[in-house]
């Protein structure tokens, strides 16, 4: 069968699967236009390659099947790279990284992992934060999993949870929503690499994406996008 | 109202269904232990009159007193009335989801708080009275028409009411069974039970009635002892019983 890269080029169009309900990577702005760091990354890619861009709206669960069944060409939708996932799809070079933290109410005394014992930590189900904390069996953490970030934030705002494991960006956002319950990052989990997802068996496309990522990390464009939505720079090591 | 010791008394009862005047001033009295038979053409209001006595229809005008209960009073205690009055409907209305036995013991057990064993004993007895003892554990849909009718009679008898209202309870019975039911009713009357029956079987009426009420066009057209059936005085009754005046 034909090579996917050729198909894309021939069609002069690239179909990118993105979940538009995971701010600040994919979301809608006030006039209901897609925006977010992944959205702009996708737009940059399409522009650089001179292609028309079509967003394939997905939910978290259908990002992968969309490329597997050729309903989308690639995924740019906060995919963090894990070995388990790499068995199913191919990843490009990381184009961004996500700092995952456990954030708690400012007033709560938390310095390190042991302090979290007995506290309910809200987390978005199936995210890398979820997996990471779930695997920390010996730390005896209590997790409450919600289906998406908004619900998780609501849990924190409404008092169902005093801690949450997510990106630092979101932790800081809670205080904006409810000044009476400001949150701050307390414990760093780790930094996850975010990469573009491609279905298995398309080495040429992966190669070309890698080139593009490297180039745009170097020229600072990806960092700019990241800073715009996440409020911090990409790790310096990535920009080399 | 003075009921002259009557167990059932109706005074000037009126009842309409919409524009249709079904009862147009009915009066009668039934003494204790008496059997009153209501006859009349189909649609003449016999069932309606009977249903009014047990307040399944509310009347528009008039007064009905049964066993001391003012039936026409809107605040009547219906349950008290119906403990004293038993009724067998023209369409039986057996409970289809209960066996014959369950149909019969239901009311004694729940209303009279009879023990289950006692109620079952009694169920057997009343069923035997109507010749249906072997169908104890049948469901209504497994019974023939006449068997259903007898089960309905048995169900009412089991409550041992003071007054029984029978709506054409021998309509599905053959002559032989009709004779047997006649005997049951006579025995009940002898025990002091008061009965009002609607029937269109003149033989049955003659055999049982202390008093006959002939209804015609919503009125009591002729009434009197059973002998009016053999020697009617109005042409309508004469025509009804198939006699020349």
């Amino acid at each position, binding site marked *: 069968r034909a090579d996917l890269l050729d198909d894309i080029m021939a069609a002069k169009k690239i179909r990118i699967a993105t979940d538009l309900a995971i701010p600040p990577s994919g979301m809608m702005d006030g006039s209901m236009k897609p925006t977010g760091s992944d959205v702009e990354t996708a737009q940059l890619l399409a522009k650089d390659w001179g292609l028309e861009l079509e967003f394939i709206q997905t939910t978290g*669960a259908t990002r992968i099947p969309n490329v597997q069944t050729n309903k989308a060409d690639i995924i740019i939708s906060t995919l963090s790279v894990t070995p388990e996932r790499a068995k199913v799809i191919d990843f490009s070079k990381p184009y961004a990284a996500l700092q995952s933290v456990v954030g708690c109410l400012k007033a709560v005394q938390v310095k390190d992992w042991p302090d979290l014992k007995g506290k309910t930590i809200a987390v978005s189900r199936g995210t890398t934060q979820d997996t990471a904390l779930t695997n920390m069996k010996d730390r005896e953490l209590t997790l409450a999993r919600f289906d998406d970030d908004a619900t998780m934030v609501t849990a924190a705002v409404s008092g169902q949870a005093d801690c949450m494991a997510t990106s630092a960006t979101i932790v800081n956002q809670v205080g904006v929503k409810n000044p009476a319950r400001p949150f701050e990052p307390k414990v760093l989990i780790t930094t996850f690499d975010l990469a573009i997802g491609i279905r298995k068996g398309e080495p040429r496309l992966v190669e070309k994406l890698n080139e593009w990522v490297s180039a745009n990390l170097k020229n600072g464009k990806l960092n700019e996008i990241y800073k715009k939505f996440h409020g911090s720079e990409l790790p310096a090591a990535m920009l080399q | 109202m003075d009921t002259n010791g009557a167990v059932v008394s109706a005074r000037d009862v009126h009842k309409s269904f919409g524009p249709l005047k079904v009862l147009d001033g009915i009066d009668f009295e039934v003494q204790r232990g008496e059997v009153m038979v209501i006859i009349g053409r189909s649609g003449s209001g016999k069932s309606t009159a009977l249903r009014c006595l047990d307040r399944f229809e509310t009347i528009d005008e008039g007064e009905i007193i049964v066993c001391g209960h003012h039936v026409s009073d809107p605040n009547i205690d219906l349950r008290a009335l119906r403990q004293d009055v038993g009724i067998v*409907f023209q369409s039986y*209305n057996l409970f289809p989801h209960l066996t014959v036995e369950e149909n019969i013991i239901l009311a004694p057990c729940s209303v009279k708080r009879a023990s289950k064993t006692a109620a079952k004993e009694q169920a057997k007895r009343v069923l035997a009275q109507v010749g249906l003892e072997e169908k104890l554990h049948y469901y209504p849909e497994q019974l023939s028409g006449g068997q259903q009718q007898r089960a309905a009679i048995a169900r009412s008898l089991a409550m041992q009411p003071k007054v029984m209202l029978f709506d054409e309870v021998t309509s599905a019975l053959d002559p032989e069974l009709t004779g047997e039911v006649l005997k049951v009713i006579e025995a009940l009357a002898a025990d002091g039970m008061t009965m009002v029956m609607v029937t269109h079987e003149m033989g049955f009426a003659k055999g049982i009635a202390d008093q006959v009420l002939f209804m015609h066009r919503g009125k009591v057209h002729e009434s009197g002892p059973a002998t009016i059936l053999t020697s009617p005085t109005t042409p309508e009754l004469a025509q009804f019983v198939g006699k020349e005046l």
Partner: protein
Amino acid sequence: MNLILDFPAILERWPLFLDGAWLTLQLALIATLLGGVIGVVGAMGRRSSNAVLSRICTIYVEGIRNTPLLVQIFLVYFGLASLGLKFSAFTVAAAALTINVGAYTTEIIRAGFDAVPRGQIEAAEGLALSRAQIYWNVILWPGIEKVYPALTSQFVLLMLASSVTSQISAEELTAVANYVQSDTYRAFETYILVAIVYVILSLIMRAGFWALGLVIFPRRRRLGTPL
């Protein structure tokens, strides 16, 4: 196609699925039992001659039936928490599902009650049964019998709908599926497996209803007419 199904990768997480299935079943059972009771009471209320009571029941039915379960669950879970009342996700999930399915069963059972012929009720009245006795003996069971298949379907639907409670951190079957599939990116395998588990759960529920039907509708059993 470069889609290769790899079930062992999913199946090795069977304890998670088992826990999820068990929680789903628990939620379904609780909501079925309590929702069934609400349905009966609600149906009686809807039919009541007391205008206020019947109005309240109608508002309950229409309010619940015509709004999404998810919103109801959110309101209970986060709303109560905002007021300082914290309940576990399981408690809230069970309560919300019960309230939800209660509204549907209220209407279904009411239809069954309404279908009991007037003559039946008259016969019971004629036997001097009290209102409660009439309801219990003549209306309740025959009425439920008439709508039993619809009720069964509704409760199976409820069992599937309980997946919504994953939104408020109840770790039921769908939640487990979502977790596993985003951890492994094996959506096909996960969904197929989870569908099989749901079918098994629904079989269990149906079998339960069938057995219950044999007990509460002895006539059906004895006459061999299926429900």
